[in-house]
């Protein structure tokens, strides 16, 4: 049975969701494209009017990106350099029309293998905050996006925020997207990375994630380990090897072959490391 609800506070939203299973929408930019040529005939919970879910705030341990925070909000926010990758992704999520209404959290919930927001947030060790029947729980992003269009959301769960640990404060972030045209393009491959450098100029921590090369975006733990302790200079790129990508399982499709995706992923990784090593 179709219904529509647009509450203005979280409590009402959760209360409603607990009683009526509903499709949650905010920006609508994934919802409508999936329904071209057919009517909306489902129960809808529109969370876009819940003010408390919008905006970026800080806690002692996290940056907190509320669930209805748009890509435009993110671009307009004052955020440190570790968000540069996420900001670069924000500029490439659809056109500005999409960036103006689409939400960061929605990009995660849609769980496309090519979601532009996932690799940067994975490389920031993001955690999602979920309000469910049993209260609030936190889940690492890697455990939230389970597969193509599959997430850990169940029943009356509502994703309410994306949390980025402050441990990355002072880190450098970057993001490279490869598509077959300049804008409005679904990624063939994308790479995001976050890097901290110690007082001696060596890599303290590195986090790298690849998107569109598996059912979900993946971190590259072997490469990250190989980078640790190395001087943060152009030689980092030379550490990238095919072995680091063995956990990926890209597909052949009209955007590119699997072999091409792996090849391009390695190239993008090298370039991203050069960029991160040379940034201040």
């Amino acid at each position, binding site marked *: *049975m*179709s*219904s*529509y*609800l*647009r*509450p*203005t506070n979280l409590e*009402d939203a959760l209360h*409603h969701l607990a009683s009526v299973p509903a499709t949650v*929408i905010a*920006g*609508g*930019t994934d*919802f*409508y*494209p999936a329904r*071209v*040529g*057919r*009517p*909306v*005939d489902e129960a*809808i919970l*529109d969370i*876009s*009017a819940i003010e408390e879910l919008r905006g970026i705030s800080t806690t002692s341990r996290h940056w907190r990106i509320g669930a209805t925070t748009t890509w*435009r909000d993110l671009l307009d926010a004052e955020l440190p350099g570790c968000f540069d990758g996420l900001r670069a992704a924000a*500029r490439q999520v*659809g*056109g*500005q*029309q*999409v960036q*103006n*209404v689409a939400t960061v959290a929605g990009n995660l919930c849609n769980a496309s293998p090519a979601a532009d927001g996932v690799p940067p947030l994975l490389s920031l060790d993001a955690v999602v905050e979920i309000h469910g029947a049993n209260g609030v729980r936190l889940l690492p992003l890697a455990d939230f996006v389970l597969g193509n269009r599959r997430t850990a959301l169940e029943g009356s769960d509502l994703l309410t925020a994306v949390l980025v640990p402050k441990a990355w404060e002072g880190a450098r972030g970057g993001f490279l997207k*490869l598509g*077959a*045209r*300049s*804008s*409005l*393009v*679904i990624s*063939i491959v994308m790479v995001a990375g976050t890097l901290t450098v110690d007082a001696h100029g060596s890599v303290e921590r590195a986090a790298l994630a690849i998107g569109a090369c598996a059912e979900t975006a993946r971190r590259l733990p072997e490469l990250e380990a190989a980078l640790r302790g190395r001087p943060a200079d152009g030689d980092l790129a030379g550490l990238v090897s095919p072995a680091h990508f063995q956990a990926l399982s890209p597909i052949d*499709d*009209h*955007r*590119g*072959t699997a*072999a*091409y995706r792996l*090849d*391009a992923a390695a*190239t*993008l990784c090298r370039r991203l490391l050069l960029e991160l090593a040379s940034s201040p």
Partner: protein
Amino acid sequence: MNDLGQNLADDRVTVRVFLNGQRQERQVAPMKRLSEALREDFGFTGVKVGCDAGDCGACTILMDGMQVCACMVPAAQADGKMLVTVEGMAADGVLSRVQQAFQRHGAAQCGACIPGMLAAATDVAARKQNPSERDVLDALGGVLCRCTGYRKIIAAVVDAGSEPQTTPPGAETAVGARLWRSDDVAKLTGVERFGADVIPDDALWLRAVRSPHAAAEFEIGDLQPLLRGHPGLSRVLTAADVPGNNGFGIYPDLKDQPVFADGLVRYRGEAVLALLGEREAVLAIDPEALPIDYRPLPPVIGLAAATAPEARQLHADRPGNLLIEADVRCGDASSALADCAHVVEGTWRTSSVEHAYIEPEAGYARRVGDRIELHVTTQTPYMDRDEVAQVMGLPPESIRIVPTACGGGFGGKLDQSVQPMVALAAWLADRPVACVYNRPESLMASTKRHPARIEARYGCDGDGRLRAMELMGTFDTGAYASWGPTVAGRVPVHASGPYRVPNVNARGRAIFTNAPPSGAFRGFGVPQCAIAHEALIDQLAEKCGLDALEFRLLNALRAGDRTPSGQELTASAGLAQCLEALRPHWQRARAEVAEHNRAHPVRRRGAGLGCMWYGCGNTGMTNPSTMRVTLSAAGRVTLYNGAVDIGQGSYTIMRQICADGLGLPIDAIEQVVGDTDLTPDAGKTSASRQTYVTGKATELAAADLRGRILRQANAARDAAISLADGILRVADGGIVHDIPLSQLPADADGVVLTGEATFDPPATPLDADGQGAPYGTYAFAAQLAVVEVDLELGTTKVLSIAAAHDVGKAINPTLVEGQIEGGIAQGLGLALMEEYLPGRTENLHDYLIPTVGDMPEIEVMLIEDPEPTGPHGAKGVGEPGLVPTAPAILAAIRQATGVAMHQVPATPDRLRAAILAAGEAS
């Protein structure tokens, strides 16, 4: 609404908006797309629907000052917002600065993207005082345009802050002046009405149900339960309902495409039946729930499969799946090739390409007594009329076609889409019946550019003079004939390119497969063919140690030469001038590329050339246009202009030609456009024929009327005429005659004098060897592309295009540039990104066309080598813009990478694979 805002979706919510400067409120279904709510509930049809998926941006509006795609905003979310659509941008009849800049720069062509473009442009203009080109590209990146190549739009937005100029540039004569479009204000203010904008409120809705299979037999089961279950569904139309011939097609003997398939479907997307009823009821039906029992057949996909000996035959009367083949033979190509000092050869493959006009197919029909009136988006009203008539079993005079504004065509709106279905339904229901394709339907159902396999050999003597060419062009014509014969006929004529070649053996053939029908698409097979001949020309130049431009110049067809069809080019063969205009650009580009590459081993640049020639008008057959211009007793001059303007500007340039022909200012020329009851047949808007053929008819019709006017005063040919207050003044030397027009005998329409003329270009049929004079004239062009290839990723960025085009005479240089720039954009898409795959790329995020950021800098150079049979020397330019672009880009890629791409699009993965393979081979 309760405290939680809860509502059933059937219920409506109150949406209060501040819309285009006015407070408005409507009761709207909360999840209705805001685009639909604005069009249907608030009445602002300036909001265009191009995809419903955020892929095209045509529906872009401003919401609280920010650009959003209205198709993805729930109507309920607009509550309390300030909205601006294209209708709200002008204030008190004065265009906004951004609109004025679009007008000055000729930024609108078909106009279907313009409402979205203007919203995006207004957004950036409000944010940035003097936006940089980068700012503009970012802001417009979400709006697709298929006509303009974006350059004039970018220029307009960058220039929007400058002091407005409110009147068009003045000129002594209209012809040759950069006059603003006759229809630009309508296109810039949302007043223009496209196919989906004219539908009456009481229209029934028709929705075709299409085959999900490329090949299948099918049976339709009992439809009564469906009809009973959906009270709003009034009937289901099938093949059995078609009263006339259940078949349409371009050629009189090839009406092979059914309106509704009759037990057998031959492509994914073929119409099987149509649902007719109230709109919401019809759209709510799940096609998969219909009682259609498909028995899939193994589909015949691709040329190899279709031509294999064991291939299943798609049409009983077409053995070998061969639709048609056509030859051009002159001299003795095979023995001449044996004698050549240098011979090169190769095979090239091109993909299926979608027109991707921003306006999907749309229109409605209504029955008026024993006649049917159709209001549709089309490139060809008279062909529509005749096609609908034979499907309905009615005489052509019983059908009236009133073209709406056409939101892009490029050849794709030369075939039937909604026309026969809505005509049939309106006839049976005796109610207006509308049909609007959604984007996936448009992609699935419509025709495509023929995928091709071109095998060619080219040879020259030791001095670099071309001696012989052989070409076999095999074209995948898909499930039905459509324009396949035109492609097969045009290709061999143009096979050897714009060069003097004494020995040619060229064949074009069209093969049936279970792909969507391939039809007309800007160039009719010549763009595919040019990819082959230009690659071979480059190789021959290298073999001879000659510069690629000088080699082309040496061999360029010139006036006095004979074509491979045996036609003597008596005038207006301007390839040499085009190449000479490009020479400094070419030399500079070569030097800059070499310097860049010394410092950049990974992102390497290359420069490449592409040349073309293109016969204007139909191939070897009559294709007349008739134009009429009248003078009324009230002193009004009306041009009856049947040359449908699909964005290229025929509603502007015909007025220019008419004005000069009469000796009156352009503002004096009113128009009645493209209505088969009112305007004479000006043929179809295709084959680069309107400027040349209809333009000439206009010139002659204006001369006819002017002659009649002068005879009223026995005045000399150079007498000046003017009109004021119903008085015709003829000033002949010192003598002034004032003729009160009301004193002249008037017909029932108040017309006192009429000029009319028909022009049919001087073409003759081709014989079995393709010999004859297939066209009245040819356009010539040369383009230079500079690209940068990322060798590690296989990505190509086109940096610049210099385009030199011999257009005979530019009737309106701004419009001519627009055609060339738009053609370049489509050529770029063909070369680098466009590939239609049924079932895979049925939307505009999987099927990629160039966005604003993909466009290079473009410099257009207009060469005017006049064509004596054309109006003021003009010839066509619609298709020539596209033809040389892909060859030039591929040549530039080859120079940058050393890799010759034999398959387009040269997508990043294909190019990277080729680079890797070349590296392994070396």
